[in-house]
């Protein structure tokens, strides 16, 4: 029989939950429930020194294995079944205050009840279990019940409310429910048609009909995309110092469309994380992957692209953890997680999943997809892109094997090399052992090495004596200075903007000048099918060319093919010119550090160039590119995986420092969350794992977030932390029921989930509170009354738009700029200007307003819109005086109040009726007599003030002025700003 002590220790650990709830959460009363009563003691009192970060005395209470292991004292701390002889009990009962655990300076000592709980638990065999959230949810609603989902949810809520001493309230007035459900589902106030439909009362079928209509509204996606975009840290700029524009809006539109068509959330998540890894991805699949390209890019001068690439990967790992798993995995970046079973190695296994995408903090934001402005051309554009990729791949498949026949290449022996600028070149012999190890052509030659100070845009000139040979192709190798180091910490790459080779024919007779002969290259091919910049461009007069842009980890090659074979004779001299003409914001010059050259005499190169199929593919690639350019598009960053050969090996970073690489690690999810032996090796597997039925967190975390949007607080209040430091669920059965239903029966349908929730009695309850109910449940965690919360930033704006009569329902497209005061945008090294729209665009919904990360739109910021510099897993809901200044004084709101006043004036009725009509439009309720009297009195005062204006503006007669004052007042009412 459990003692009362067990329950009281529980309530101490979770003080915020009334005792009754703990009773409900507690598992069968005959066992000591580890998670409910023992784990909280460890978290509160032990893990700071015996946990993930510190294992003092080699003791940790993160896993059972660790807790039972032998410690520095030579004995295990816990002997299961034998509390009397367990060191742990000795230490926590130690009479000497200086020796007793936990030490006084680490917080409160254990209570007698807690000591007793630990004793009972050890005596019971020290049973352990995973944290509740790591256990796969089981639907508590068995098959044998007659309850519907809604009945079950309501029954659970009512029972728990009753246990908390609360009597569940009655249904909300029809107008209140309609306002609530309209904002919650489409983010807009109720339509006139819906308001008319409920005048005769709100029957259950009518509720269903309204919910279904709202779910089908094109505005649904705009409302729910806003929730997702906080997690996705979506913005229209790249972040950091200059914070320039980024065309990420096609992603925003793709999210809105996905929510509108109710794309099942599992499919949605697979695309967000790995749309590019699907077979034959569509344009929207690719655009979905912008999710993780929303991480900021840092193009400040003098930034290291690798450092900020790594910061972006960290951002992706942390965002995936917080937003999807509800886990603070970021804690494990520098050391093991202090409280949860996530090791530092686990962190870098997750890191490896994101470590080999092609992006590397470039100002060009590559890789990108050209997203057509007109979505109806997505399919056509994607078909062209796919054909082009296939063509490039075919070409590469013919080039690569031939280039890799290493025996054909004869190394060039340079005899002199020099550079422009400060760059110094040396000619060095090559080490055949190194060449063999790096699989470089073995035969002859030497290399040019750039040393000392390197100047951007250096041009190398090098000479060599020719050996008699017929040349069909030239192969260049670019090596890192130290390949072993570069494999782990990459060095700066290069762009070879122009390659030139001149032959000085030995003069026919002594004394005559040598004859110069320019070698004509017809094509260049790099060692990857579709590099950021084509190697061909090294043959043209532009800064582009064969490149490793911008970080190099391994030796790289390119082959340049001659249009016809050229024969070299003894005595001929070769003059090479390697021009670098591109610099970056990065930390070092984009120059080849070690350069080798080799010739081939193989006639297959010449044949290949002339081969009909090969030439046709070359032509087709060019034509496809031209056709694609004809489709007006913007360049949107997406995820793309590096070719297998170029994958970046992942190493644990000691103390989270990228310059201190530790042990190599391979991709996987944390061991504690693995449900089978199948490792998770890539992003697609990760996405499928996240949405697999055995994965305990994704569905719970998502359902909980939706719950918070509707009910005000999550069932788990810490929506971003389902770990040991997170809050215990208030309604665990409801959470698990919803999670299981959502991911199975409802097939991950957000609309179905919302339909069920908005039709519950709990959601539809009257929001009225009394001092008594407030005393028992100040934050409405038990839902005995209906949810009443402040509108989100977006809803505040959108409601005013609708009331003004100027609402522009246009969806999608580039972001818009409504009025914003001068001077808000003023970034360093940036000339970007806010150009306020003077057309209908200024009346578009908040989700389309331009979002600059370092200077957000002020009126949205004031209402807690996050800066979007990082994943915001939980948006604040505050009330500050600055918000009042926005809705009273922001010229954008003044204009909307004028529009609203016009509508009220157009309403053919008495002044009193007009004001009452406006009040009802705004708040969905009828004003009390006192409220109406107050507004009318304000109207008279405003009329007087209008008359007193000097001069009196013609365009703004007193009636209009006074009604605008009333309209603005209405927009500022508590009843207007809440739902």
């Amino acid at each position: 029989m459990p003692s009362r002590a067990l329950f009281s220790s529980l309530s101490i650990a979770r003080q915020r939950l009334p005792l009754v709830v703990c009773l409900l959460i507690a598992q069968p009363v005959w066992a000591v429930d580890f998670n409910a009563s023992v784990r909280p003691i460890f978290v509160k009192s032990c893990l700071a020194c015996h946990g993930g970060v510190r294992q003092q005395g080699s003791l940790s209470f993160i896993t059972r294995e660790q807790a039972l292991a032998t410690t520095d004292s030579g004995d295990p701390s816990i002997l299961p079944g034998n509390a009397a002889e367990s060191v742990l009990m000795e230490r926590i009962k130690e009479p000497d205050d200086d020796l007793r655990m936990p030490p006084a300076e680490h917080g409160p000592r254990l209570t007698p009840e807690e000591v007793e709980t630990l004793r009972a638990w050890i005596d019971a065999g020290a049973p352990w279990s995973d944290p509740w959230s790591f256990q796969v949810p089981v639907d508590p609603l068995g098959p044998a019940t007659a309850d519907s989902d809604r009945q079950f949810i309501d029954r659970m809520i009512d029972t728990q409310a009753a246990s908390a001493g609360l009597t569940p309230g009655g249904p909300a007035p029809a107008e209140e429910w309609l306002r609530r459900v309209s904002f919650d589902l489409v983010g807009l106030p109720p339509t006139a048609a819906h308001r008319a439909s409920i005048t005769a009362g709100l029957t259950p079928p009518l509720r269903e009909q309204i919910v279904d209509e709202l779910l089908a509204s094109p505005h649904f996606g705009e409302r729910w995309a806003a929730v997702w975009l906080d997690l996705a840290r979506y913005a229209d700029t790249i972040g950091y110092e200059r914070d320039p524009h980024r065309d990420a809006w096609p992603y925003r539109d793709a999210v809105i469309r996905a929510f509108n068509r109710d794309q099942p959330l599992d499919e949605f998540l697979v695309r967000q994380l790995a749309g590019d890894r699907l077979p034959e991805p569509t344009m929207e699949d690719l655009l979905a992957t912008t999710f993780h390209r929303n991480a900021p890019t840092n193009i400040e001068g003098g930034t290291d692209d690798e450092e900020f690439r790594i910061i972006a990967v960290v951002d992706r790992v942390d965002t995936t953890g917080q937003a999807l798993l509800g886990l603070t995995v970021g804690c494990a970046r520098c050391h093991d997680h202090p409280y949860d079973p996530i090791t530092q190695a686990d962190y870098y296994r997750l890191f490896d999943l994101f470590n080999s995408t092609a992006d590397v903090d470039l100002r060009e934001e590559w890789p990108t997809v050209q997203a057509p402005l007109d979505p109806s051309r997505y399919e056509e554009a994607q078909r062209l892109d796919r054909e082009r990729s296939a063509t490039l791949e075919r070409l590469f498949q013919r080039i690569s094997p031939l280039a890799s026949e290493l025996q054909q290449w004869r190394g060039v022996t340079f005899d002199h090399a020099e550079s422009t600028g400060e760059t110094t070149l040396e000619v060095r012999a090559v080490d055949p052992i190194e060449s063999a190890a790096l699989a470089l052509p073995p035969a002859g030659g030497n290399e040019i090495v750039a040393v000392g100070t390197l100047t951007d845009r250096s041009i190398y000139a090098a000479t060599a004596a020719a050996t008699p040979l017929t040349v069909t192709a030239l192969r260049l190798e670019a090596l890192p200075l130290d390949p072993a180091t570069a494999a782990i910490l990459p060095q700066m790459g290069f762009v070879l903007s122009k390659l030139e080779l001149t032959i000085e024919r030995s003069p026919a007779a002594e004394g005559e000048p040598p004859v110069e002969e320019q070698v004509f290259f017809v094509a260049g091919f790099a060692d990857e099918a579709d590099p950021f910049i084509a190697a061909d461009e090294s043959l043209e007069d532009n800064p582009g060319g064969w490149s490793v842009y911008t970080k190099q980890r391994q030796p790289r090659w390119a082959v340049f093919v001659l249009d016809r074979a050229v024969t070299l004779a003894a005595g001929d001299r070769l003059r090479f010119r390697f021009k670098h003409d591109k610099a970056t914001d990065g930390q070092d010059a984009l120059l080849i550090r070690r350069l080798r050259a080799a010739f081939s005499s193989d006639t297959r190169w010449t044949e290949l160039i002339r081969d009909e199929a090969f030439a046709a593919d070359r032509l087709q690639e060019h034509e496809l590119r031209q056709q694609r350019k004809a489709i007006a598009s913007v360049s949107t960053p997406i995820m793309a995986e590096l070719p297998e050969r170029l994958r970046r090996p992942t190493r644990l970073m000691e103390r989270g420092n990228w310059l201190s690489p530790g042990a190599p690690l391979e991709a996987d999810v944390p061991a504690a969350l693995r449900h089978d032996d199948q490792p998770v090796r890539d992003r697609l597997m990760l996405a499928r794992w996240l949405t697999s039925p055995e994965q305990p967190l994704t569905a719970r975390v998502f359902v909980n977030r939706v719950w918070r949007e509707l009910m005000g607080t999550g069932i788990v209040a810490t929506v971003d932390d389902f770990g040991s430091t997170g809050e215990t669920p208030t309604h665990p059965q409801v959470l698990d029921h919803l999670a299981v239903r959502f991911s199975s029966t409802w097939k991950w349908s957000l609309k179905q989930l919302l339909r069920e929730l908005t039709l519950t009695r709990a959601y539809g309850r009257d929001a009225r509170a009394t001092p008594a109910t407030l005393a028992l449940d100040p934050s409405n965690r038990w839902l005995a009354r209906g949810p009443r919360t402040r509108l989100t930033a977006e809803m505040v704006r959108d409601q005013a738009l609708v009331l003004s009569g100027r609402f522009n329902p246009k969806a999608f497209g580039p972001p818009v700029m409504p009025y914003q005061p001068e001077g808000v945008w003023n970034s360093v090294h940036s000339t970007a200007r806010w150009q306020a729209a003077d057309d209908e665009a200024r009346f578009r919904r908040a989700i389309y307003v331009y979002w600059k990360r370092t200077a957000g739109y002020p009126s949205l910021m004031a209402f807690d819109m996050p800066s979007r510099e990082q994943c915001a897993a939980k948006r604040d809901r505050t009330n500050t005086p600055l918000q009042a200044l926005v809705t009273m004084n922001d010229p954008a709101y003044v204009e909307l109040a004028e529009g609203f006043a016009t509508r009220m004036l157009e309403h053919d009725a008495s002044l009193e009726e007009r004001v009452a009509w406006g009040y009802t439009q705004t708040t969905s309720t009828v004003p009390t007599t006192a409220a109406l009297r107050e507004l009318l009195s304000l109207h008279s005062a405003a009329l007087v003030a209008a008359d007193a204006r000097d001069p009196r503006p013609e365009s703004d007669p007193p009636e209009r002025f006074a009604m605008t004052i009333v309209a603005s007042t209405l927009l500022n009412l508590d009843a207007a700003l809440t739902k």
Partner: protein
Amino acid sequence: MNLWQHQLSESRSLATRRHFLKQGVAGLGACWLAAEGLSLPAAASSAGAIQVDPTNPWAPRAPHFSPRAKRVIFLHMAGAPSQFELFDYKPELARLDGQPCPASLIAGERFAFIRGVPKLLGPNYPFHQVGETGRWISDRLPHLERVIDRLCFVHTMQTDQFNHAPAQLLVHTGSPRGGGASFGSWTTYGLGSENQNLPGFIVLLSGGKNPSVGQAGWGSGFLPSVYQGVQCRSEGDPVLFLSNPDGIDATLRRRVVEAINRVNQETHAEMGDPETVTRIAQYEMACRMQLEATTAMNLSEETAQTLALYNAEPGAESFANNCLLARRLVERGVRFVQLFDWGWDMHGTSDTTDLGGGFAKKTREIDQPIAALLEDLERRGLLDETLVVWAGEFGRTPMAENRGGKANPFLGRDHHAKAFTLWMAGGGVKAGYSHGETDPVGYGPITAPVQVRDLHATLLRLLGFDNERLVFPARGLDQRLTGVEKAHVVEELLA
């Protein structure tokens, strides 16, 4: 009593008369922070977590210990001024001017723009000893010399970031990545503010551009957003949307707010939601803020003598004006005033970033106002409890910048994380003291290096906080300004 003051006193008395409001706040626990905010997540050691009254998160609170400073003015020279041209006297560097930098000094180091082997660059200005403490200072700050004995220098500041945005993030939020809470936010979270009619944390910008860090430099991060800094401006409304629309005067505005609040009382009577009571307080406060912020930001109230002291000019956007505004704001009980002055990034790539021309201009702009601020604070008896901090986000190299491997067209220095100088004055710091010494060429500390987290721990101590116990549970951790690594209070800096 002028009109503004009249309005102000009337609105205050209105507020106190509002029996309903009083009862509402006391009885029901109205909340600024939404209901959820009441139940902050329980972290393992949140014992020291600040107890915020959700009915007024700006209400003044007592720190852990008796504070030495009650408010902060942080003067950030955005772009990072050169210590070698101001405060770190290096005669040896002058002697070695033009010599190639020894390889041992820079082997394995990363720089933003320096390539290969740069040349050492001697100080561009003569130094001399001033004040009773005889400290060395260049000839660029003649006004500051008057108050040099009030200053406490740290010559051995170190950071691990050498790009502006991340380094500014580190100085202001304790983390080089975004998402952290700024020092000003931590301060107002910890202490609240003494004037409820003004934001407790105000930001003033000068230099023509925003600092590289953007609004993240005064963001509240994981702290409730009521603690984020509010930017006040010299042009347009001093606080965005502070002034009434055309045709609405103060009387009509009061009438509007009265109407809003009376109707809200009706709503409250009907719904019983404590947040409605908060909203009533919120609108009252907005109304008072309109008056008080307008007054606070109105430099024309200052005497000609004071304006001249600062070299301030009402209406302009200038560092001088911002210094004077800072005094006006702390005088009114604003807890934290953050100034950013942009334009200190002297790379020597153009005449505006030249250690000769551009730098001389910047030092002229700040010299007189800073001296005036310190003297003015002292004269008004505010300096004792006002902590003034002057700093950049990192230092500059003792080598001349050689961008792209070539000597720059003008004199400039690259970003340098190994050593920089900052100073503090006022509230509880040891006036006349200089902390730490750099090596003969000023490349790095030879004694007493101070990390940014140590600086934060020290500043928090001056404000009365144990940096280990000023925590906020978020993202699974007890978050601290000083981060997870151990931070040390630099006791020597404390008076």
